[in-house]
């Protein structure tokens, strides 16, 4: 890939179209040492974490109700499908009208992430093995223990897979949101600035940063999966 990149960069011969890889990596490296780097990445991370927490609460709350109550589920499904199939950009444009620049990405993150968590929690609850619940009732395990020791462990794998897809989509949506809403600090803001000034190497450098962080999220999820559902491995 690097070779193709290098060849293409030489072919175009212009940093405004495609800077060579070594220059881009140098720019990326320079970013890490930039005094605002932590503030920028930190702001985007905090936005995504807040968005994730909200979507987690909303997703689990609605997901649990829908898992228990089929009627509510029937009502919720089309709503979720609508949210999921609405282009992110349309949501952002609306959010720009309604919210302050800093909270637009948070709102977008929440809206893109919560349907994944919600559907997975619902599916998880509905897939709980009736026979195991019955067994626990026969042995008079009590409501609290049945929830804690039968339902929750059965749902956790679903929550993890929901979280994994949610974060994958959410992370990209947050940066898109930042590009358009231009909060003071944010990876998306900086990407947009770089693009305006035709600093292509900086655009790619910030992309690399975003990819690295996304990759780290994925790693954390895989790690917690191994921790939380050790019985599967």
């Amino acid at each position, binding site marked *: 890939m690097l070779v193709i990149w290098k060849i293409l960069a030489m072919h175009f011969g212009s940093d405004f179209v495609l800077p060579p890889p070594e220059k881009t990596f140098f720019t990326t490296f320079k970013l890490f040492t930039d005094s605002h780097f932590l503030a920028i990445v930190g702001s985007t991370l905090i936005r995504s974490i807040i968005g994730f927490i909200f979507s987690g609460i909303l997703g689990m709350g609605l997901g649990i109700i829908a898992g228990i109550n089929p009627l509510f589920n029937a009502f919720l499904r089309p709503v979720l499908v609508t949210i999921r199939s609405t282009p992110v950009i349309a949501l952002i444009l609306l959010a720009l009208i309604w919210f302050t620049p800093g909270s637009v990405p948070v709102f977008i993150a929440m809206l893109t992430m919560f349907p994944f968590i919600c559907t997975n929690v619902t599916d998880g609850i509905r897939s709980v093995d009736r*026979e*195991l619940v*019955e*067994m*626990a009732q*026969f*042995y008079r*395990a009590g409501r609290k*223990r049945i929830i804690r*020791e*039968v339902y929750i*462990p*059965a749902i956790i794998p679903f929550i993890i897979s929901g979280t994994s897809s949610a974060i994958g989509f959410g992370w990209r949506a947050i940066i898109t949101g930042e590009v358009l809403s231009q909060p003071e600090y944010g990876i998306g803001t900086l990407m947009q600035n770089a693009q305006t000034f035709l600093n292509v190497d900086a655009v790619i450098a910030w992309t690399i940063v975003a990819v690295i962080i996304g990759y780290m999220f994925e790693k954390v999820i895989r790690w917690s999966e191994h921790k939380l*559902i050790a*019985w*599967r491995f």
Partner: protein
Amino acid sequence: MMNLEIKGLYKSFEDISLFRNFSINFPEGEITCILGPSGCGKTTLLNIIGNIIRPDSGILNGFDGKVISYIFQDPRLLPWKTVRGNIEFVLNKNLPAEKRKEITGHFIKLVELEGFEDFYPGKLSGGMRQRVAIARAFAYPSDIILMDEPLKGLDIKLKLNLIQTFSQIWQSDRRSVIFVTHDVDESLLLSNEIVVFSRAPVNILTRQKVEMPLTNRSPDSEYLKRLKQILLNNLGT
């Protein structure tokens, strides 16, 4: 010994009447086997005894306040709990951890699963899982064990093995056991008395005591072969 007794039982599902003025008793401290064709209402009777479904009418004597454990056709183990965790699951949480560990260890030893305490069910064979289910049923401080086709679908070697394990634990414990099956050979090997059920609505076709020590029964013994013939004649096969 007191009897566990059911009198004048009525139960129907929609149009099908399973029990019509049906009565039966189970001697306490014995393994009573209910043998009958599929769908005759054996499982329903277990569920009535276990207080899971209500009879339309009828009297149950001697079951009041009795604690019941179950062995199902599937082991029904919690996949996220180890062998030890699955057995501990049925123990009273108020017991001190030491005591729980002791009970669990004792029964793991009896079902010969030492060394597998920390295995998850997914890592065990079918026979081993069913042994965990047996250990769980005995570890639970119950008065009665209800078994619904616990050996169905297992190969003959495993069956004999589990019957042996079960018999040994039962000998040292002598709990009342009600064991439901449609398999004549199983009933002969794992019971003190066999009650043969007809198709629904249920009649008792015959009641046969198996006068033979429970452990080391051989299906080839003349006595069991004769008994088997009687049972088969009653079942009408």
